[in-house]
């Protein structure tokens, strides 16, 4: 079907909207979710329309996903596994594995040759299994989120941590700083802790190439490298990894 379709993904940290015209992305937006999901949905939707140069009336149908997706005022709601999959299918038709590192948890999805879901594993809500730990860390180290990846890649001796809980890690990081560990080594050590959580989640799934990493965590090159090392894989990355579930929702809105 031709025309414009809108997908909205209201995550715990960020809200995203994508407008598609056929398989082409006409506009997109990402904003912080804040505490009111309905407001976030309205705002991110307006931003995406503005970016695409469209009006509300141009949209034929909308679909939503994510933690707050049921409050997004969309025509339909779909699970994040399906939306992740459809978004990845659209950009990487050869993908057989999807790893989504979100703001509150993560998921690993395996796909068949036709790009349909075979199996998946969702982490419990845990800061260490998500990009949230990186936010905590950025605050302690006094750096910006986007500086984490490049800095961590300079690590020479990644720090070892005795715990995998973000709360205890916070204390341990402070101890390491006082012991003179370099910020890049601490970051690389933390990346390994997160990667280990992802590995634990992927246990029992057969990960075949191509592997695509999406979600906010995929914007951190150091984390991507740590996941690749721990899982012994090579990955593909979308240009804008945060909007993939919203893209998937838009594609689903077009198809239904």
């Amino acid at each position, binding site marked *: 079907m031709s025309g414009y379709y809108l997908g909205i993904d209201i995550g715990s940290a960020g809200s995203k909207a994508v407008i598609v015209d056929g398989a082409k992305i006409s506009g997109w937006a990402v904003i912080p979710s804040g505490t009111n999901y309905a407001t976030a949905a309205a705002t991110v939707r307006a931003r995406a329309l503005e970016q695409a140069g469209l009006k509300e009336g141009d949209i034929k149908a909308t679909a939503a996903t994510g933690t707050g997706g049921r409050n997004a005022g969309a025509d339909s709601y779909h699970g994040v596994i399906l939306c992740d999959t459809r978004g990845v299918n659209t950009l990487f038709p050869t993908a057989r594995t999807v790893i989504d590192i979100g703001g509150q948890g993560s998921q690993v999805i395996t796909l068949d040759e036709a790009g349909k879901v075979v199996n998946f594993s969702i982490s419990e*809500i845990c*800061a260490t299994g998500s990009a949230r730990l990186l936010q905590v860390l950025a605050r302690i180290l006094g750096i910006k989120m986007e500086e984490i990846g490049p800095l961590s890649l300079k690590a020479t001796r990644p720090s070892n941590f005795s*715990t995998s809980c973000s709360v205890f890690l916070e204390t341990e990081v402070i101890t390491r700083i006082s012991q003179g560990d370099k910020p890049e080594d601490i970051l690389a050590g933390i990346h390994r802790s997160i990667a280990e959580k992802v590995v634990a989640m992927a246990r029992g799934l057969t990960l075949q190439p191509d592997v695509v990493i999406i979600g906010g965590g995929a914007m951190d090159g150091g984390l991507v490298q740590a996941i690749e090392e721990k899982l012994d894989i090579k990955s593909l990355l979308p240009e804008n990894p945060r909007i993939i579930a919203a893209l998937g929702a838009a594609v689903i809105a077009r198809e239904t």
Partner: protein
Amino acid sequence: MNNLASQLHFAGIDIGSTMSKAVIVDAESAMKAYVVGPTGAEHRRRANKVMEDVLARADLKIEDIAYIVSTGYGRVNVPFADKQITELTCHARGVASLFPDVRTAIDIGGQDAKVLKIKNGRLTDFLTNDKCAAGTGRFLEVAAETLGLELNEMGRISMQTDTPVKINSLCTIFAQQEIISRLSEGQPLPDILAGVYIAIATRVVKLARQLKVETPVVFTGGVAKNAGMVKAMETVLGMKLLVPQEPLITGALGAAILARDQAYQLVQRGEYDSHREKKLSEAYIEFTEKGS
């Protein structure tokens, strides 16, 4: 040993992640004195300090203590201890000395939680959580910090309600965010606090249910001092709990009783005098030097 019995005393020192505790018992295993203080970063200095304090409280000198057992997370950092014994063994012994019929002991400490199955005073099974801050005292500390309250105020305030708010996040980091959201929605503070306790209790009870929870159930650890937490545990478990008068010191008490047992074994083997001599020449000197 009978002729010596009235003069001999035994000590247990429990260096926990957050609090350090020391207990002195006499030859009948009756408690003569105890102290509790924050652990801080320097375990060794802390071990000396609690030992000094408990001696002062019992009106005894280090020479009067026949045997010392250390336990807890920092047990290796008690240079003057005669023996180190794991906290699970000490804890089971301490709880059983207070509640001889105990079948299940739940301990929530500053950074961990343990569930012990005990039969005829002996440890038969256990599970611990030290991997995740949810379900430990640390969760409470984070909540207190977020709300700007003292830990002891929290319990009192939470008791004012029977309608706890539901805290969905089991992860401490996300729960912190959730507490802030609930506050901004205008939920009453007592309801939020009661919800925090229910969240911790839910996590710990999930651990406990992996072993069979049999009564009587004893609840100990620093977190058991909190009335709000006791109420939440009873609500989630659906049963009454026994709480010792001083729930922090069961590990140290067990260590002190085990110290007494160890000393008796040495006496039976005829090795006590040589042990005593060695001790007076080495370990006690270390104690007095470092402690001063």
